């Protein structure tokens, strides 16, 4: 957890790029390769910290998503014209308002396979997000928040610092119930301890606020009225633009202007956000530097995403293997090689060389 770690933003960009790559394909072999890539990098680079365990949690969640999709496909069928029937479930009649949804009926290989491909894509995406969660240090991520979000950032830092204390308080108070002659186990004990813990926490918050005030929290720089007015105009105007753009995207008529207006509005709003940061005179102590390694890590992810997008445009058939008629998916060579680019962080990242003992399940 030293300061020499990689910029957390680089990990997020890398993971999200891998996730974007996953959305370009339903080829299970390519998706499996993406999962393997992220798993290898996580195993090689993740630090020995509590949040590093979240990768496993995300893998479990992804598995759950996949299973739910399969269960839906089995129970509800799909519009696909499948011919290979595995089993026919008894069909339940549904009322008219169900609008053509049926329960039960034929379960075909095509249906299941299609659901599995689709579910696997979402699962891969979740696993990539999980990789970012376990690789990037959340506290350092907060340090990179823009100045305009400083106050919110402090609130989150306080929450992150205080939550472990809170759990220790609960354990201590629960044990102390024994001293009053009350059982110290069970859900009742937990409930009764809740109130004193909350009261202690609130008292602590007042003391903390005093300390923060006396240490210079909330000092503001002199912002000229002109800048302040510009900030307001940019923010609100930008948000209006985003609203108009969204409306355009959602209506048939707005097809042409929707996206440009939305993006222009977003840019204005973000410029307002950046300008708003002028009001805090705050500086940063030892910020994470965006160095060459960060470029390499983020770049490798971006390359994977770009190459897969290109491949999807050039050769859609290879990246979207058909289910009707049934064909076995094949591994397209060039896209697969592109996915392997995502392994680069495992070799350039300065994170611990000794991989964590636990392998992701």
């Amino acid at each position, binding site marked *: 957890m030293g300061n020499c770690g990689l910029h957390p933003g680089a990990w997020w960009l890398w993971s999200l790029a891998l996730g974007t790559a996953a959305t370009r394909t339903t080829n299970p072999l390519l998706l499996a390769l993406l999962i393997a890539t992220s798993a290898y990098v996580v195993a090689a680079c993740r630090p020995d910290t509590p949040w590093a365990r979240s990768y496993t949690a995300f893998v479990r969640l992804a598995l759950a998503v996949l299973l739910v999709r399969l269960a839906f496909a089995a129970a509800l069928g799909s519009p696909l014209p499948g011919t290979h029937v595995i089993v026919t479930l008894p069909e339940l009649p549904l009322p008219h308002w169900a609008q053509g949804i049926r329960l039960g009926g034929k379960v075909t290989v095509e249906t299941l396979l299609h659901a599995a491909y689709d579910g696997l894509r979402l699962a891969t995406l979740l696993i990539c997000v999980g990789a970012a969660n376990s690789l990037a240090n959340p506290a350092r991520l907060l340090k990179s928040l823009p100045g305009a979000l400083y106050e919110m950032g402090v609130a989150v830092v306080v929450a992150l610092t205080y939550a472990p204390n809170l759990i220790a308080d609960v354990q201590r108070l629960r044990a102390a119930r024994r001293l009053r002659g009350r059982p110290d186990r069970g859900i009742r004990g937990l409930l009764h301890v809740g109130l004193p813990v909350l009261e202690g926490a609130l008292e602590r918050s007042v003391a903390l606020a005093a300390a923060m005030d*006396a240490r210079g929290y909330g000092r503001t720089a002199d912002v000229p009225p002109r800048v302040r007015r510009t900030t307001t105009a940019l923010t609100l105007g930008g948000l209006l633009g985003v609203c108009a753009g969204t409306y355009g995207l959602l209506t048939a008529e707005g097809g042409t202007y929707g996206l440009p207006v939305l993006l222009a509005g977003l840019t204005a709003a973000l410029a307002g956000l950046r300008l708003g940061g002028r009001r805090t005179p705050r500086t940063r102590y030892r910020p994470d530097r965006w160095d060459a390694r960060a470029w390499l890590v983020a770049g490798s992810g971006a390359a994977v995403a770009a190459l897969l997008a290109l491949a999807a445009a050039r050769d859609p058939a290879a990246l979207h293997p058909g289910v009707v008629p049934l064909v076995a998916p094949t591994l397209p060579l060039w896209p697969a090689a592109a996915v392997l680019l995502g392994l680069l962080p495992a070799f350039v990242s300065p994170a611990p060389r000794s991989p964590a003992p636990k392998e992701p399940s």
Partner: protein
Amino acid sequence: MIRFENVSVTYDGATEPTVQGVDFEVPEGELVLLAGPSGVGKSTVLGAVSGLVPHFTGGTLRGRVTVAGRDTRTHKPRELADVVGTVGQDPLSHFVTDTVEDELAYGMESLGLAPDVMRRRVEETLDLLGLAGLRDRSIATLSGGQQQRVAIGSVLTPHPRVLVLDEPTSALDPAAAEEVLAVLQRLVHDLGTTVLMAEHRLERVIQYADRIALLPSPGAAPLLGTPAEIMAVSPVYPPVVDLGRLAGWSPLPLTVRDARRRAADLRQQLEGRDDNALKGRGAVVDLRLPPRDRDQSKTPTHRRWFPRRRTPATPTTSHTAEVQALAVTRDRVRALRGIDLTVTPGETIAVMGRNGAGKSTLLNTLVGLVAPTTGSVTVGGAEPHRTPPRDLVRRVGLVPQEPRDLLYADTVAAECAAADADAGAAPGACRALVSELLPGIADDAHPRDLSEGQRLTLALAVVLTARPPLLLLDEPTRGLDYAAKARLVALLRDLAAQGHAIVLATHDVELAAELAHRVILLAEGEVIADGPTAEVVVSSPSFAPQVTKILAPQRWLTVAEVREALA
């Protein structure tokens, strides 16, 4: 540097000002101690320097406070942050981030210092406070003394010219307090920082003070003077001053060294009367002696706290508690090993030692919060960790370090009713105890709004409602002023006289000297000394009370003993 001009503060909703007539000046580079009993408004005076009073707390400030030329009316606390550094009593509620280095930088970040300046000052401060080895550590894993030093360091990095400290050593053991005070002295001597500090434990800090501002009673104007002048009239004073007043020394000695130089006559006068010297030799016999009663004269208006109430007899064994070959291992750390201990009715034992020596673990084992890894513990004939809580409270009671942990209800009355129900006592038993121990606690007061001393008394009453023959107290004098401490001593003596066995884990050598029949020293989970108080503390430089140090080689423990002998 700090200038009070006829200041009074009235909080919102209060009819009377909390402090008034505050009118003094603290020159640059001085260490001024703010002394006085609990509840006289010391924290209010400190808060007025940093601007927290009244900007943060609300209320009305009459008069004017200026710090380094800045008027607190026009400067909010955040605008004074670069000239005043404030450290409160509980360092944990001072920290915003979770690692030492980030915490040191936090204040400078808020002030907008340049990154290279911040980097340099963090390194300087790490060296100045001896924190370099801890820079990457999570603050929650540090000891109390280390945390307090980090708290001081975190306000030092913006290079304030004034440091305001509210009881910086009250919660610390003697060694950690020394660490913190050494740092403060270095700041005053080397950097010319002005320090204004409130502290209950005068024996620790008085020798560092250039001057003392005394708030004698609530609403009274403060007195300012040299430590010797103020101590001659102060209602709060350390044992060395008490002895000096008894012997009529003038000017009053403030340190053990001063007092020793004057004490030749007194030693001569007391020659041959130190019966502790005699008692010390018969160590084993002494353990079963009835409680000393020669100290009782200290409380002339003495009355029985628990008339006609006898501790339920424990028929099976004459020992209240017995510990054999006890070892406790927690998180792969050996907290205790090879402990043998018997506690007999009416005996008061002080368990002493560094932080982390295993004092609290020993008490927790006796009350069943921690199960022994090997060895056996029996309390009143039962194994505490296997006894259901309802039965256990009738055999042993523990008042934890933080008495708040025992209190759940939102009024004193509800707390007492719950205690009666928990202990199976007659309704009203707990409330009667509270009224006896400390009159003046209102029924509808919120337990969290009570003062430290009142809260301790309430927790003690809650524990005593079940009338346990064995009473355990973990650091009972934390945050208590001298008056509250004296009340506690009288109370515990009376309980011991009725046959309650009492075990205290404490850093407070003066408390141990006044109260304990026997002292057990722990180090790294092992017993390194066990014997009568006089014997153990006299031979230990860090655990000897001030009177013992002054009158050595004679064996006196407390001023009360000396007073008695001279009478």
